[in-house]
């Protein structure tokens, strides 16, 4: 049995920031199913928000208001306040660690405009900000390699739970196929989101709900899973991301008639309205037959920015257009469509990242979560661009501090290694034993298709019910899937199957919570209930697993400074 004081699952921004905090005092194991530098945080392009005021005066109060309004007043405002207040400090710390930032002529960190933010507050490194921060944190981990052991290409299967205490994780080495138990005084999940359940998504192949579902399986409810953000600028058909920075720098959105259609949806903010509003506007244009050439895409037009600005501020985006679709945005508009991008919901945690067992705040001791897999909730019903990198860094650090407080001087809990291993080995064996009459590829594609068309940008009761039925059927078929590779060595097929199982579970949580929420708020839009309904639904959803299926309870929203008001841009 492997032992570490603390084990962190996930090596993106939240996981690594947490590790840097914990390794000051305790021995840390960081587990990632890829490599730290391959984590999906690195794909974030546009920026990280903080009210530094480097190009215009700014304040944490304005950042807080923008965040709460952007989240359609579902955010827990006590958490938002601490989060935006911490922002400048954590950015300076990243800079001190060596993170590379674009600069103002005076040598300060440069900042630009972003959707839903009333001030230019996105600190950036050209159009690869996540990459710059990810590598800066990875550099610090390499510097601290004596107290941090990184398990590259290891997969986390389940949590080891004893009553109300978490004592470790069961994992396997993807390279060798060996199953191991890691005993730890505290476990931190920083496992990212679950955009892969949708057909069109900006997410990496790794974004498959592993962490969220492992938590759900030991009785943790999942908070607000119906709130999934669709990013307005995914590459047509592929879904990969063209940063909102393209609009922050002044890019236009044009429909098939060449009109800047945002005029009709958000006249004051135009292309820089929050993402949920822009994505819906795009989908509405396409549904009304005003897509480009009548297809499901619209144009992102950067031509008027000129070559020099594009090359300085958006070089990576230009290259993506050339490589992936053969379009040079200096001379031609880019075809885009809404793409599933970010999970506002996740494992419920308090401001200190302690995982909650219920709406009353009962803790699962020794279990913490941070970043996209967690729901604090600072983003409410819709996250503003550049707030996610900030979330990962702020709450990664906080999780680290909470873990130190918890695990300092604590003993290891009891772990029945044989029993824990046997459970996972049985899972492998079950998959190998299936009758093989179904194709996992078909099941995965059908899940992605139904989630996109029936639980996507626009939802209604009929579609959601059909979606839930289809998912039930797919789960049955999943038990009969065909496996080709029964070897142990770098068997990526078996992990894709396990991930598909997680995604099928996650998809049901999303659709079920979406069906129950009979209102439209943030990223969740019901065409049969197109208005926000604060009387009935100004609360978080908490989805529990019970022997009779999913049960949804509620959790109050914490409102401090800003009372809910109509959200207009």
């Amino acid at each position, binding site marked *: 049995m492997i032992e570490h004081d603390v084990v962190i699952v996930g090596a993106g921004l939240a996981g690594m920031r947490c590790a840097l905090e914990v390794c000051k005092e305790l021995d840390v194991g960081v587990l990632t199913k*890829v*490599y730290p*530098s*391959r984590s*999906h945080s*690195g*794909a974030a392009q546009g920026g990280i928000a903080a009210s*530094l005021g480097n190009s215009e005066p700014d304040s944490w109060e304005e950042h807080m208001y923008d965040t709460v309004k952007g989240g359609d007043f579902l955010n827990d405002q006590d958490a938002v306040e601490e989060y935006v207040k911490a922002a400048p400090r954590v*950015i*300076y710390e990243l800079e*001190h*660690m*060596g993170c*590379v*930032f*674009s*600069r*103002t*002529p*005076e*040598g*300060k960190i440069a900042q630009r405009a972003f959707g839903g933010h009333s001030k230019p507050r996105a600190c950036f*490194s*050209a159009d*690869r900000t996540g*990459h*710059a921060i990810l590598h800066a944190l990875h*550099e610090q981990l*390499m*510097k601290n*390699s004596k107290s941090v052991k990184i398990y*590259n290409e290891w997969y986390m299967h389940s949590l080891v739970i004893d009553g109300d205490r978490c004592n470790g994780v069961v994992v396997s080495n993807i*390279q060798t196929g060996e199953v191991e138990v890691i005993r730890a005084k505290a476990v931190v999940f920083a496992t990212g989101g679950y955009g892969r359940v949708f057909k069109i998504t*900006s997410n*990496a*192949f*790794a974004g498959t709900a592993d962490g969220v579902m492992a938590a759900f399986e030991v009785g943790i409810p999942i908070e607000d899973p119906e709130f999934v953000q669709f990013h307005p600028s995914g590459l047509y*058909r*592929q879904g*990969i*991301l063209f940063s909102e920075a393209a609009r922050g720098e002044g890019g236009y959105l044009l429909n098939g008639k060449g009109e800047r259609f945002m005029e009709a949806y958000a006249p004051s903010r135009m292309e820089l309205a929050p993402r949920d509003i822009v994505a819906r506007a795009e989908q509405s244009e396409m549904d009304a037959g005003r897509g480009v050439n009548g297809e499901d895409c619209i144009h992102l037009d950067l031509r008027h920015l000129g070559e020099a600005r594009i090359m300085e501020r958006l*070089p*990576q985006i230009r*290259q*993506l257009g050339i*490589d*992936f679709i053969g379009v040079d945005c200096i001379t031609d508009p880019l075809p885009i469509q809404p793409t599933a991008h970010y999970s506002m919901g996740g494992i419920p945690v308090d401001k200190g990242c302690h995982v909650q067992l219920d709406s009353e705040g009962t803790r699962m001791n020794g279990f913490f979560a941070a970043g996209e897999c967690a729901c604090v909730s600072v983003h409410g019903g819709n996250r503003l661009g550049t707030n996610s990198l900030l979330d990962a860094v702020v709450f990664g650090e906080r999780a680290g501090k909470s873990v130190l407080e918890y695990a300092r001087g604590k003993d290891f809990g009891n772990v029945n290694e044989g029993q824990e291993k046997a459970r996972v080995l049985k899972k492998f064996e079950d998959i190998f034993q299936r009758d093989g009459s179904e194709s*996992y*590829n078909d099941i995965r594609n059908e899940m992605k298709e139904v989630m996109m068309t029936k639980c996507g940008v626009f939802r209604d009761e009929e579609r959601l019910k059909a979606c839930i039925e289809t998912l039930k059927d797919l789960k049955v078929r999943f038990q009969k899937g*065909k*496996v*080709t*590779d029964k*070897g*142990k*060595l*770098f*068997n*990526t*097929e078996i992990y894709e199957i396990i991930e598909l199982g997680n995604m099928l579970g996650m998809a049901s949580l999303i659709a079920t919570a979406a069906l129950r929420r009979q209102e439209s708020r943030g990223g969740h839009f019901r065409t049969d209930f197109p208005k926000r309904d604060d009387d009935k639904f100004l609360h978080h959803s908490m989805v529990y697993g019970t022997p009779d299926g999913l049960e949804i309870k509620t959790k109050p929203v914490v409102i401090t400074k800003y009372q809910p008001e109509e959200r207009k841009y």
Partner: protein
Amino acid sequence: MATFRIKRFNPEKQPEPYFEEFQLDIPHGATLLDCMNEIKWKLDGSLSYRMSCRSAICGSCAVKANGHALLACQRQGEHLLQDDDTITLEPLGNMKPVKDLVVDFTPFWDKVNKIKPYLEPKEEPPEKERQQSPEQFRLIDDSSTCIMCGACYSDCNTLEVDDNFLGPAALAKAQRFVSDSRDSKTMQRVQDLSEPGGIWDCTHCAECVERCPKPARPFDRIKEIMTVALEKGVHNNNGARHALSFTNSVKRSGLLNENRIAPESVGIFNIPGLLGLIPIGLRMLLKGKIPPIFHKSIEEVDDVKRIFKELNQ
């Protein structure tokens, strides 16, 4: 219909790698990675390779296609088709295959670790950010785009014959700190990087620049480190002496003086080193390959000198 010739390897089943062919209609707009997924998900689930982001930023999916390393997600399948409608896929070079297209990255990361890949700042940080001008940022902008995909490492000609070479990715990463205005260890870094296995072992073939899927262009970064090393007076090694001898010779005569470059590279007071040159000198003599004893300048040597003057050299 395209034929994918894929190098398969699974030591659990058989010790030697072999090629297997798969037929696939490449859908229009499909990336090479999309094609690999079609093969894995529809034809043979046991095919192993790495992938994650699909947008050329995570660096997972580097493989060799038609003999050269590239990112599978970044290239259109159609563009890689050879005249005989085939695409040949192999694992990255210079690293040990684990299974199919998956290789062992351990030595790659060990070398990145060797260059002390983290900022060593000058002093305690200020309350806010350290100042860095846009010009200073630009010096580290390109190297910071490296995604550690290993494409350069795979196709590096030096690594093919010298395991000890740090390799293009680690050296590009080193430039990121050598040229960072916030770093305090520039001198120490360029001294370390001038040791055997470092910058001077690069053969200047620039294959890494061809293979790099990002603007990191490792050989350009290696040249930048060389420049800093020479400017800082780190001359006490064969590589630096070779570069200086070469430059001086051209500056004086417009032509390389081949008789001087070997002794000047090992160091003219380095007796054992000079004695070590004798056998190869004798062999050259026997083969009639000794250059003329008296080195003559080219006719336009004044023009060459003017160029050097223009460059303040």
